[in-house]
């Protein structure tokens, strides 16, 4: 059972364009949604996160849009740069857990072409 789903599996955009990565979830108990960025040969690193009480979180060129009713969220990367080429994982964690037991999506591989 895939509780967190991501689409597309891979995405290619031109430098300067906005990349949109989608994520959906099934469990209404999830209330914390981090996005992790992973470069080849490295471990996933926290990029940006949102809690379900908010509908938008911005950090520079990275913005999360969150729709609680539809159980969907998206990561927008504006002015995409070749250095943004990486795999992006959407994850979720329930409010009831005292620990960061993250449930991950399968990831979106982003390529930014110069």
């Amino acid at each position, binding site marked *: 059972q895939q509780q967190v789903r991501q689409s597309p599996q891979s995405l290619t955009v031109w430098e300067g364009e906005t990349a949109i990565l989608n994520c959906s979830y099934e469990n209404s108990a999830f209330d*914390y949604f981090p996005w*992790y960025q992973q470069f080849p040969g490295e*471990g996933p690193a926290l990029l940006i996160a949102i809690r379900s009480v908010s509908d938008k979180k911005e950090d520079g060129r990275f913005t999360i849009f969150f729709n609680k009713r539809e159980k969907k969220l998206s990561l927008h990367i504006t002015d995409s740069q070749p250095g943004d080429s990486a795999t992006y994982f959407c994850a979720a*964690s329930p409010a009831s857990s005292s620990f960061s*037991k993250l449930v991950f999506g399968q*990831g979106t591989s982003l390529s930014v072409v110069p």
Partner: protein
Amino acid sequence: DTTVKQNPRYKLARVGKPVNLICSQTMNHDTMYWYQKKPNQAPKLLLFYYDKILNREADTFEKFQSSRPNNSFCSLYIGSAGLEYSAMYLCASSSRDRGTEVFFGKGTRLTVV
């Protein structure tokens, strides 16, 4: 230093043989996790230690063991490796007192032949 270190980075094992993977962190985090990542699949939580208490996920309960001899180190043990254990194993850590950020290591790629 927000580093989680994993050794070795690559591991080759024979079917039926034991495998032991090592992880360490110097952030004094109270919680350490092990995830399994297979190609085109989501990272899957196998187990985690809070302090000295081991919590294993229900569907991996009998397949993996772990130990945490001190706060900084955590191991993942496979008693008898099967082909299905070939995967990337990611160690991570976090602190209950400092928010929800989880820090990941670079992973150990295990190949069972």
